[in-house]
């Protein structure tokens, strides 16, 4: 297929926006309604694209999973994915990323009563992560490097992994901080859970688009930079992370991290590997 996404969406008058069913940055309310920090940001990007194209571009929401999002972007099913995808070097070989809009910190979530306070306390414990995410890889590497011996269980998705923690099958849930916060906040007893210890790794999250389409990437990046510059993205952050959100009207309660602030100050599309090297 052609690599000129701008021409394609202009011609068809619609864009396929990749969204997630249940991540902290993008999730569904049912009935084909998709919301979240990244989803709304994506909608604003499309609004900017519409303006540039001079005609209304309709959004087709296409829910993706962590297993299929890359092939879908590659094969043209999805034009722009604004879910919660880590920008890393391996992926950058197949797709390209917009500037980083959120920097995820991989953290440890545990029960407040567990006595786990940091990575070293995980020795001999059972740790939950989610199939098809890069956190598993991070964790695996850490494990080998530091000789830390813990058992690993993998949920098929984040809610599943959280359930492992909730039901006591796992002692900790290692994952992106936003996901941890969202899952804990939605649980029955949000106060039972706490995020502890050091940041295990830092992952830049960005919208994903097809490779080798510089014009489209520029249009997307420009829109994001505008949103950062005029403060609207910060308002969006406040709305989705610090205020009550649907469907249950609970707060995630996750203030903006230093890393995210830095990324906004200097918009860039550096992959995760560049962060680790720092």
């Amino acid at each position, binding site marked *: 297929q052609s690599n000129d996404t701008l021409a394609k969406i202009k011609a068809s008058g619609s864009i396929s926006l990749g969204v997630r069913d249940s991540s902290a940055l993008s999730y569904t309310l049912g009935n084909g309604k998709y919301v979240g920090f990244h989803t709304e940001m994506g909608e604003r990007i499309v609004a900017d694209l519409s303006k540039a194209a001079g005609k209304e571009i309709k959004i087709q929401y296409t829910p993706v999973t962590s*297993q299929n999002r890359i092939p879908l972007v590659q094969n043209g099913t999805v034009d722009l994915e604004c879910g919660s995808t880590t920008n890393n070097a391996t992926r950058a070989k197949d797709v390209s990323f917009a500037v980083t809009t959120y920097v995820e910190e991989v953290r440890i979530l545990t029960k407040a009563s567990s006595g786990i306070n940091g990575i070293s306390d995980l020795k001999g414990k059972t740790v939950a992560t989610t199939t*098809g*995410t890069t956190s598993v890889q991070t964790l695996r590497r850490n494990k080998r490097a530091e000789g830390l011996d813990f058992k690993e269980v*993998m949920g098929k998705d984040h809610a599943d992994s959280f359930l492992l923690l909730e039901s006591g*099958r796992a002692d900790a849930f290692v994952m992106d901080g936003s996901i941890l916060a969202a899952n804990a906040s939605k649980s029955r007893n949000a106060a039972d859970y706490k995020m502890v210890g050091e940041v295990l790794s830092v992952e830049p999250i960005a919208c994903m688009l097809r490779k080798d389409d510089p014009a489209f990437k520029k249009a997307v990046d420009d829109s994001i930079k505008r949103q950062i510059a005029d403060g609207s993205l910060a308002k969006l952050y406040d709305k989705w992370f610090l205020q009550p959100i649907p469907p249950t009207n609970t707060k995630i309660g996750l203030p903006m991290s230093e890393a995210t602030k830095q990324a906004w100050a200097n918009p860039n599309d550096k992959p995760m590997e560049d962060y680790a090297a720092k």
Partner: protein
Amino acid sequence: MGNWDWQVYLQDPGGKDPTYLQWMLSAWGWTISVALSALLVALVVGSLVGILRTLPNSPGWVRFGNAWVELFRNIPLLVQIFLWYHVVPAIFTPARDVPPFILVVLALGFFTSARIAEQLRAGIQALPRGQRYAGMAVGFTTWQYYRYVILPMAYRMILPPLTSESMNIFKNSSVAFAVSIAELTQFAMQAGEETARPIEMYLGVTVLYIISAMVINRIMAFIEKRARVPGFVAAGGTGGH
């Protein structure tokens, strides 16, 4: 789709397996362990339940057997696995400490046992009624005519569906990835994601599944050949996944 990159199999995934290839082979091992253990459970439980359903003058047992079959075959396997993995331990806490492997084997085994029970019942009832009468007429007790007359023929007759059931159990074990068993499908999804080379990973896994299916098929064909009764011809059955 073009350019293959089979080198990915030699990359280091960073875990205990030095390469993706070795990881895939170990995943194959999990698939085989889950499938064979579940097959054992399914055969034992399925036979028992199947026999119960055909016992003469035992309406209680027949009803129990029927209930078993209906319960385990009318809920999707995936949902049953979730029930065993999430719901049962939530209601019955000690089940939390049972390793997922056992839970999956039980889930897959019981699910398949319902189907084997159904086949065995059909096999037994497809035998001419006269065979049962003949067994009774020479003075066999119920247990004896099952043991010496009915079951040997019934098992032979259901070997074809048992073959497809055994192949199914390998395929169905793929659902175990949903509860953290590091088997082939989980490998395909995880490794496809990590390497961004899903096609290569899927192909490798698919080939292993086909090999597994063929090996099981050959083993069952061998058993069928060994068990063949000279001069006896019977019609086979079909259906199901």
